[in-house]
């Protein structure tokens, strides 16, 4: 428990990290460092995307599963680590 908190703090303090969101399997954010509106937006959109990505991977091979998803854009990079019950979303600006 404390390790989780500690690791989250470390991640937060890394270079260029803009925000961290943890959402549960239904897409409800349970922990976030961003403001409410952004969190809600990110959570909703990313949840759908992850579901779709996971479905894609598994449709191709049902024994496969999604382990990490990275979306790199012009301005930043969104990294999503899906767990069995939770998704961890980190938005980073790598050029900082």
């Amino acid at each position: 428990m404390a390790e989780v908190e500690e690791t989250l703090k470390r991640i937060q303090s890394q270079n260029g990290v803009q925000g961290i969101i943890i959402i549960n399997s239904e897409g409800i954010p349970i922990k976030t460092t961003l403001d409410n509106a952004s969190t809600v937006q990110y959570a909703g959109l990313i949840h759908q995307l992850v579901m779709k990505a996971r479905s894609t991977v598994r449709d191709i091979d049902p024994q496969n599963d999604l382990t990490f998803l990275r979306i790199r854009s012009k301005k930043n990079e969104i990294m999503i680590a899906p767990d069995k019950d939770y998704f961890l979303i980190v938005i980073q600006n790598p050029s900082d």
Partner: protein
Amino acid sequence: MATSAHNKAPRMPGEERPSSRTTTISVSGIHGAHQSTRDTNSIIGFPSRKHFRVGGGSKVLEKSALQTPRQVVRVFDEEDNDVTPQPLYQAHPAAPHAKSCRLFLDEISAGSASDQTTATGSFTMPFSRSMFGSSRISSQSTIESLNEEIEDTFSKWEMPISFPDVQGKRNTVKEHVAKDMLKEVTDVYISEADSISLLDIPSTLMSVEADDTEVIMEKNNQYAELCRTRMGNNKYVDRAVQTLNGAAKNKQVQSDSNVMVDSATTVTSWDIYDALIRPEQHEEVSSREQEGAEYPGAAVDPNSGAERSASVGSTASTASTASAASSLNDGEALGSSLNTESDLQLNVLSETFQHCLLVMERSILRNTLQPELAAYRQLPVIEESQVKPGTVEKRQEDTESPRSPAVERLWAFSYERSRGRSVSSMAWNKINPDFLAVGYGELGSSEQKAGLVCCWCLTNPTWPEWDVQCDSAVTSLDFSSINPSQLAVGMRDGTIAVYKVNSQHNVSCVLSSSQCPNRHLNPVWQLRWTQQELNLTGDEMGESLFSVAADGRISRWFICSSGLDCTDLMKLKKIQHTKKKAGGTRTESVLSALTPGLCLDFHPTDSSVYLVGTWEGLIHKCSCSNNEQFLETYRKHFCPVNSIKWSPLSPGVFLSCSSDWTIQLWQQDHQNPVMGFSSTQTAVCAVDWSPKWPTVFGAIHEGQLEIWDLSSSILDPVLVQPAAAGVQMKSLLFATQTDCVLVGDSDGQVTVYQLKNLRAGGSSQVKLNDKSVESKDS
């Protein structure tokens, strides 16, 4: 039959005695309650009793008594004495017990232990009638058995009857009778009870040979004739009859209509796979349900978050999991839950979530350190927005514009706990080339600080994979090659501990030499795991741990029951007879015949030969099989030899460095060094060969890192990298697969430097020319 006995005929109904007497009783009357005299058991009265449950008879009697005129029954014994039992109890019609008590009626003789409680409903009138028809009684044996039953029932029966005195009398009489009558023979007569007709439907068929067949047949024929002539016969008149139709009544019933709900789901191929392969996990996902938005006929609107959305009607969800496309309800539900459940759910997060966090952390770092990591791995660096002249690293000589060799600092391993501690030793994991163990410990200071061992992974330079505090400063480290998860740590107080990395963050100290009586009491300067082919007795051995310590002993450690134990391989005796400095900071021995050994290295191919460098500047070549004598002694240094390394690529060549500011290159056959190098006038702390280039080695002075390339220059180092300000470099390690060098410094940082443009491809071995055989005076 004794008359006396008769006189004492029990007045109580239903006494039973296991007597063998019989009395003939003449009974008259319907009831046939053939009384039992005292001898016989009341049963006698009811021959048919044997058909019933015990005690039933009496009850029957009773009922019959009610409805049919009772007939007085009188009992006579063989001598025609009237032994009719007197009525014990005159029943009152109003008495509640009357009915049952009438059973007692002595006239009936009762006795039959009529059991009030016994259900004698079956004994209806007709039964009684037939029952009582008979007058004779049961056989002896049955009587006796019945007796017993009746005894029981009788005893039960005693309850409702409030005849205490009767009972007493009964008992006494019983006894009395028993004594007298035991030996007498009692005759008992059995007769058959009347048969009871339950249903009697006379047959309409007759035998042809019966007597009145003719008559019947005649009648039949007449009837048949009559039927035939019915139509025109005057004897018959048609008449109509109206049947009354009952009034019809309408009754309406309405039932709940079956609610139909349409439900649909999109099934993907992996849904099917999941359902087949992992049915138990199926239920877990049932929280994602699809609900029908409206009642029947409506299109299904896939909604997730069943708990949150208002459930419309019945949630007849299908068994399969929700499809991939599920839209969230709008954020109204989200906002509220942001913080309320965070604490609760974070508790659940910890176990399964760690891995996600780990991967995420590494990914983030990879983003930030991407250029450096790519350089480390010798990958082309991606051009980013900040324009960096893309330098493509090549292993071979740079055919493009030749650049001068350069050292580039990539990154540094350090974290908060390691700051301030001096790096004393580093070791790569034998299996995983990205895994590095670093030992921290203050060596020079007089105060004893706790030591620290960290394991770093290349992917995360900001936080070690695991770290463990040690009791005293760490002086040496080595990973085992057989069990790559075992790390041997030697400490300043002489303890050797073996740690085993069980899982990610779980480190356990497997073994420790702190209990061993032979342990070193001085700092363990070097540890090595080595595969041994043959031990002293000539058997094959596995890997064993060797250590050299400041007490001058070289020991081999093995695992015994209580931890580690060692055997001494060699004692470093002083060759010169100079008195050792007492009270030195590095050793505790004041006057000993042994000199501290500072470094140890096994021959790369012949694992029984090793080199050891001593405090006095001597280098000894020893063999594992010889405890007493050195194979050879190399003298050149006059200060403590800090490090000795065999060349991995050139056989028989080794380097030594010492505090006398020089590095010496030796060949193992020559007593004198082949070459000596010196650059600055500071002690050389460590020296190491490059694993890739046979002519390249690195050396650390306290203030700088030097890379020497023998093929280009033997006078000066090719590369010099000064240490950061205020920091002294302490240890050196070459990376095995890339051209990077790790340098540990006194501030707890392990810096990774990349050697660039080192044109050292040419030779595969160090060739010793005649020119360079002469050693250089340092």
